[in-house]
């Protein structure tokens, strides 16, 4: 038991000394992850739209060549950035640019470099997710939009992407959480995110384990909060599962509001009669049987 008391004391003393540093690290990590996920999504959406522009043999040759080139470039981008470790991409870009340009071109800050690397990396993953999201939408939606004269861009932004976005939202959440954790590799180019703080604190105090414990709790809380917020967003996007009838004449009976001859409305005397304990039991049993026979009724998501 003593060991836990000691750990607690160590953590408290570390926190007292370095709370500012840790919190600064958290802020750097979160801001970078959120910003890069957002920018990555935009890159992914753009790639998704460009990648799915249809061309037929009725289009002129330049358009066809252009679209082919776009698709090939896109493919290369996705394969390269998805197929190499982000830690290496950071090193290659941060040290490679000055190396090749004889120090003429270099990133003015590590933050900017980290931002570019993580965004572009997320973009590569998102490009594929968006493509999947677009494919998953019924082609009838595209045809419906085309049939009323929408261009590809209008079809995408008004009809397909809003639906595809809902489908890839879990994937965006995935990427945000991955980014929160994986921005830790940006310490390789000297970006002071959360994990880099651990290295410097542990390096000065030799308190490796207590510092790592703080890091664990920190990362876990960040990701938990992120997934909670994403759930909320998903729920909001699904919208209400019911709607209001717009009836000019409020006395008009519409389907579902008629009174059943046997049951009456729920407010009159007869309904009480119906709802005796025995009747309720019977009704419940019947519903169970129906469920067994036809499966549970599916509600709206």
């Amino acid at each position, binding site marked *: 038991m003593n060991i836990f008391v000691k750990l607690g004391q160590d953590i408290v003393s570390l926190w007292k000394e370095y709370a500012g540093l840790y919190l600064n690290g958290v802020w750097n990590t979160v801001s970078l992850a959120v910003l890069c996920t957002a920018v990555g999504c935009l890159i992914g959406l753009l790639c998704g739209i460009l990648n799915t522009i249809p061309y037929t043999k009725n289009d*002129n040759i330049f358009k066809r060549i252009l679209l082919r080139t776009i698709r090939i470039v896109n493919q290369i981008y996705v394969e390269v950035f998805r197929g190499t470790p982000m830690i290496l991409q950071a090193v290659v870009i941060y040290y490679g640019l000055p190396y090749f340009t004889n120090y003429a071109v270099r990133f003015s800050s590590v933050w900017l470099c980290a931002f570019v690397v993580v965004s572009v990396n997320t973009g590569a993953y998102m490009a594929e997710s968006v493509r999947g999201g677009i494919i998953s939408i019924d082609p*009838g*939606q595209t045809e419906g939009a*085309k049939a*009323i*004269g*929408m261009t590809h861009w209008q079809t995408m932004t008004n009809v397909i992407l809003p639906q595809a976005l809902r489908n890839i939202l879990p994937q965006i959440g995935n990427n945000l959480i991955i980014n929160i954790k994986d921005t830790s590799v940006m310490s390789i180019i000297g970006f002071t995110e959360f994990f880099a703080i651990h290295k410097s604190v542990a390096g000065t105090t030799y308190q490796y384990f207590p510092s790592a414990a703080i890091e664990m709790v920190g990362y876990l809380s960040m990701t938990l909060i992120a997934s909670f917020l994403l759930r909320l967003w998903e729920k909001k996007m699904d919208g209400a599962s019911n*709607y209001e009838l717009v009836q000019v004449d409020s006395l008009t009976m519409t389907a579902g509001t008629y009174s059943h001859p046997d049951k009456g409305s729920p407010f009159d005397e007869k309904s009480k009669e119906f709802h005796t304990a025995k009747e309720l039991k019977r009704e419940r049993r019947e519903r169970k049987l129906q469920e067994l026979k036809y499966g549970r009724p599916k509600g709206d998501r």
Partner: protein
Amino acid sequence: MDEMILKINHLSKSFGSHEVLRDIDFTVNKGDVTSIIGASGSGKSTLLRCINLLEIPTSGEILYHGENVAKRGFKAPPYRAKVGMVFQSFNLFNNMTVLENCIAGQVKVLKKSKTEAKEHAMYYLEKVGMAPYINAKPRQISGGQKQRVAIARALAMDPEVLLFDEPTSALDPEMVGEVLAVMQDLAQEGMTMLVVTHEMAFARDVSNHVVYMNDGVICEEGTPADVFGNPQKQETRDFLTRFRNT
């Protein structure tokens, strides 16, 4: 009445080596209600989809007011806005409400203002009897209601011609009635319509021109009285007897 809107010359379409349409010729005049009948797989829907450029014809011309729309590099979107289409599977936009479905095209394609578009959409929604449901999402209404909204959506674009691709095939008998009633009203108001259908009663009573297709060619065409009352070809007679028997 005799102004020509669409003229189709020697239209052919093949998917790979399979020839779906062969040498189709016919014209659509203003105010015509043309029914295209025929067995499944005879190329009716493909013909309609070619007219709306959802499929690119392999050869032949589609003249819209004298301009060939099937030529290379033709800009399809403005043309499609003038030629409305109603699908078998409705294809309402799932991310929008009924009202938004009818507004989207007007605002984005015709660049109308939102209030103007809404007024126009409400006029047609009222007409098809869907005005109370403007806040519903497509997944919340029945098939017949969806199809009526789809018709209102197409009408709201003020098309010159309305193409119907088996509008009642995905509906149960009760809902077929409500959709056909709307289409009949439109026909009486002088809307130019091109209807692919299996509803022989509609073809006979509402349309003024019937095209019978068999195996990718137009087998017989003429007024409903001619085609239904006095079919010239053996294939047509066979097809019609099969329909009467069922």
